[in-house]
């Protein structure tokens, strides 16, 4: 059941792409105006190919993650996230299995608990909570039979998460952080381990160096860190010792922000992976996308 060890990691890596604002790999406390929509589209390429089991196992997940944010009130913002996934598993001996389709829908809300604004600066803290519905197909098959769990587009489970997010931003850049806990439930005799994660993002305006009255677009250099701990999964009630663990990503990136459009790209590099047993390790996650202000 070694591929199952990668399942939690893949879900975790895709799930944070629900933010309409500053950080590239997670959410933010920055506002979505009342009655306003923000759309975010992000391509996420994930490769997990560092196989401690020496079976040449590689799992690629290419995802287009669509996010729609809506300002329900000045303090409450609602978000919906839906990925389209293309997955492929390769193994020594020429085994190759794949799937593609819509993944699970995530809906969550963010409520601003604290807000302090000054000229050219803001500090905000918000609470987030949401659910992931099993909208993706979780019983896909191929010529070899039912696809393994990591290759299914959906998980089949209802999951939930809560967290807190904070943002401090000035005209020169900003610092964002997010702490979340995701509770998983069982489906198809499998239950992924609950996930705790801490995300940090530091941004610095690199262009223009000095603000001018005509400055209506910024380019930021971005450095993020994602510390993710996943508990062991269970299969038919039995703990899978080849799952769960801790991964730390360091994520350099770049972001262009104008009045209506944000373009962004980043690469998540796993600098620390302490995974249990023969759980598949991650090689990299590449992200590129845009956000549109309606």
């Amino acid at each position, binding site marked *: 059941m070694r591929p199952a060890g990668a399942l939690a990691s893949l879900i975790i890596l895709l799930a944070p792409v629900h933010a309409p604002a*500053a950080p590239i790999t997670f959410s933010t406390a920055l506002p979505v105006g009342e009655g306003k929509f923000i759309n975010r589209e992000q391509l996420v390429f994930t490769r997990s190919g560092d196989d401690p089991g020496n079976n040449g196992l590689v799992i690629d997940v290419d995802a287009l993650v669509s996010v729609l944010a809506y300002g329900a009130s000045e303090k409450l913002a609602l978000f919906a996230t839906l990925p389209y996934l293309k997955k492929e598993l390769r193994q020594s001996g020429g085994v190759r299995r794949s799937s593609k389709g819509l993944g699970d829908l995530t809906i969550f809300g963010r409520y601003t608990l604290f807000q302090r604004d000054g000229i050219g600066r*803001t500090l905000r803290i918000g609470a987030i909570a949401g659910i992931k519905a099993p909208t993706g197909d979780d019983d896909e098959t191929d010529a070899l039979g039912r696809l393994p769990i990591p290759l299914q587009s959906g998980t089949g489970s209802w999951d939930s998460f809560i967290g807190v997010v904070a943002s401090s931003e000035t005209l020169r850049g900003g610092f964002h952080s997010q702490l979340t806990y995701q509770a998983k439930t069982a489906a198809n005799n499998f239950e992924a381990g609950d996930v705790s994660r801490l995300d940090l993002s530091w941004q610095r305006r690199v262009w223009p160096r000095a603000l001018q009255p005509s400055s209506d*677009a910024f380019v930021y250099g971005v450095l993020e860190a994602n510390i993710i701990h996943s508990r062991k999964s269970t299969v038919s009630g039995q703990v899978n010792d080849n799952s769960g663990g801790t991964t730390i990503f360091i994520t350099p990136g770049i972001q262009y922000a104008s009045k209506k459009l944000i373009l962004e790209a980043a690469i998540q590099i796993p600098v620390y992976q302490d995974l249990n047993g023969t759980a598949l390790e991650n090689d990299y996650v590449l992200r590129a996308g845009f956000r549109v*202000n309606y």
Partner: protein
Amino acid sequence: MKRLFFLLTLLFFTSQTLAEDVHYHIVVGGLSCPFCVYGVEKKLKNLDGVMDIESELETGEFFVKVEDGASLSEETIEELVSKAGFTLVTFEAIVLED
């Protein structure tokens, strides 16, 4: 007919000369990037009578020009800025007489 046209033209320019040019100087807190400014600008543009908006991100300033006879209240702007997710710092009406 020529005389009537002349009189109408004169009346038009006279009324333009005597009209008050009303601007509003609004300062908003919490704006830290161009993406944020757009949210406030869009809400201001949706107000009746607003003709033109200029913004200055570094100082959080918005200069709003309204049509003749139109006006904006501080309460309206405060609510608008708050709904955009930001904080109104100052609101000032500036009347320019030609």
